[in-house]
């Protein structure tokens, strides 16, 4: 989120209460900034696009590793070692497996960073004084002003729900 209202809460419980209330009121574009993952609002782990990318990378990596072994030892330079088969499927398994793991982890790591919008060293939320406690012991809720239900009055509502303070992120549209 880049502009909207940010509200600071003192505890996880206060955050969850406000979160549920906002959901009841029909807010859709709400996010949170927390020191650790708050399971009650993050919900159960879901299958994300990154996971499908990782799966594809694993399959491609495994097939690529196996193909490379086959190409090197059975096609480009077949070397007869005591009559053993050039295309030694069983002997090619370990490297195929390792290549699958390598490809999916490397791709997965960068895909995760991209999905998280990282690296991004400068972000509007960092301009707010005291926001650095979001990684320590404060729980912030952000209501995006692109939300169809959004109105500036949501700040007062958030304060009634127990927010310590509210901050306007970006200018009013």
């Amino acid at each position, binding site marked *: *989120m880049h502009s909207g209202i940010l509200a600071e809460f*003192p*505890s*996880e419980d206060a955050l969850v209460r406000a979160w549920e209330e906002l959901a009841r009121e029909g807010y859709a574009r709400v*996010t*949170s*900034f*927390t*020191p*650790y*993952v*708050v399971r009650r609002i*993050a*919900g159960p*782990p*879901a*299958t*994300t696009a*990154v*996971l499908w990318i990782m799966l594809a990378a694993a399959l491609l990596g495994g097939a690529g590793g196996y193909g*490379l072994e086959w190409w*090197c*030892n059975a096609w*480009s*330079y077949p*070397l007869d070692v005591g009559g*053993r088969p050039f295309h*030694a499927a069983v*002997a*090619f398994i*370990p*490297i195929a*497996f*390792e*290549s699958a*793991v*390598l490809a*999916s*982890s*490397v791709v*997965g*790591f960068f895909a*995760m960073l991209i*999905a*998280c*919008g*990282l*690296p*991004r*060293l400068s*972000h509007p*939320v*960092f301009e707010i004084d005291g926001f*650095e*406690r*979001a*990684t*320590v*012991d404060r729980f912030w809720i*952000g209501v995006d002003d692109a939300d169809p239900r959004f109105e500036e009055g949501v700040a007062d509502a958030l304060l009634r729900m127990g927010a310590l303070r509210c901050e306007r992120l970006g200018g009013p549209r």
Partner: protein
Amino acid sequence: MSAAAPLELLAEEETGGEPVLLRAGSDAELTDRLLAPLWARWAWFPYAIGATALGSAVLFAVVGYTMVTGIGLWGNNIPVAWAFAITNFVWWIGIGHAGTFISAILLLFEVHWRTSINRFAEAMTLFAVVQAGLFPILHLGRPWFAYWLIPYPSEMGVWPQFRSALPWDVVAVTTYLTVSVLFWYSGLLPDLAVARDRAPTRLRRQAYGLLALGWRGELGQWRQFRVVYAVFAGIATPLVLSVHTNVSFDFAIAQLPGWHSTIFPPYFVAGAIYSGFAMVLQLMIPARRIFRLDDVITKNHLDNMGKMLLVTGWVVTYTYMLEPFLAWYGHDPFERFVMLRNRPFGHYAAVYWLVVFCNCVAVQALWVRRLRTSPAGLFVVACIVQVGMWSERFMLIVTSLQRDFLPSSWRNYTPTWVDWTILGGTISFFLFLFLLFLRVMPFIPISELKEMRREIVRRRAVEAETVVRLPLAGRGGGRA
């Protein structure tokens, strides 16, 4: 009950009895407590880092000497061509297994006591794998051609031979190193962000800010992070098992008596985790004392690590018992000679009995609960295990090579001062890297620990409510 209420004692584990977290006040207190070592001045640090840097310099000098002169400086001969280099390689890579075991496998099993020590163990893994990688490369004889191990298109038109187990190792070890780095760094992101937000000086704020890549703890980020981190653990789990399996294939695929056995993969993996856990204890116990971490690394952790040592120790012991049995049962005269005569009564019998004492006998002390929860006692046992595991690899490699099929080619092996110096040098270099890690990185996972603390607080609150409410709801009616 408010989240910030000071808690005297947290988390009675259902199984263990000892708590996994003590005296954790508020989130802010816990954070500052865990970050404090980063900002503090350590009086002992210059001496420690100086000593290990000196040791590392000696290592590089001797490695340089070896590269200039050749590996004739080592005690290796034919038939004992593997000797120290491969012993050290297998030992170090084995140590490097505990890190991912603790962070990945114990994460999947949702073991609570993993949380405080996983960062530690992961860093240990990385640095151990770095040491391990040094040996096969030097052992090539002409290490500047190490890149021939990679299939790259060259004018020679030849490729690595993938039907041999040795290229499997190359891929397994480099994959393991890469995945361990990524897994470690992903887990560090939220903690680097805390370090950024708590840094006392502008320079540190910028340094940690760069490393944290701009982590904000936003909901979408947590959702992505959590899923990918768990899947990383899922794929790192078979990876850990596969790496030492591949190392064991170097032996098992060969025809030599004492090596050619299907028991090798599980035997090697158990041995690797055994020595790895011993190394975690060897590093953790001094750090726990120096940084007074007994509230986050509690007796519960020590107790459980001790139990893990005992379990893996017994797996290793079981293999030691099974190997001679298989040799006897298999009726192969060469196999019988190595297992039943050469190892226990041959030239290196002292090493064999040292292995039996360290790995099978000494570890039995850990049946005593008081010893498992005593840092000094555990530290001593871990050191003994470490010596035992190194000696085991030495015994395994040297006794099989030194007496192979043809008595005319039999020859004993004696390490030279260069061998010993390189081994000592890698220990120094390992400690050097580990000290640097302790100095600059948050070495106890902060956000995970806060999450765990929160879970414990909530579980307690729920339990307290249930206890009060059940009789009121009339379910337990009738009981006084």
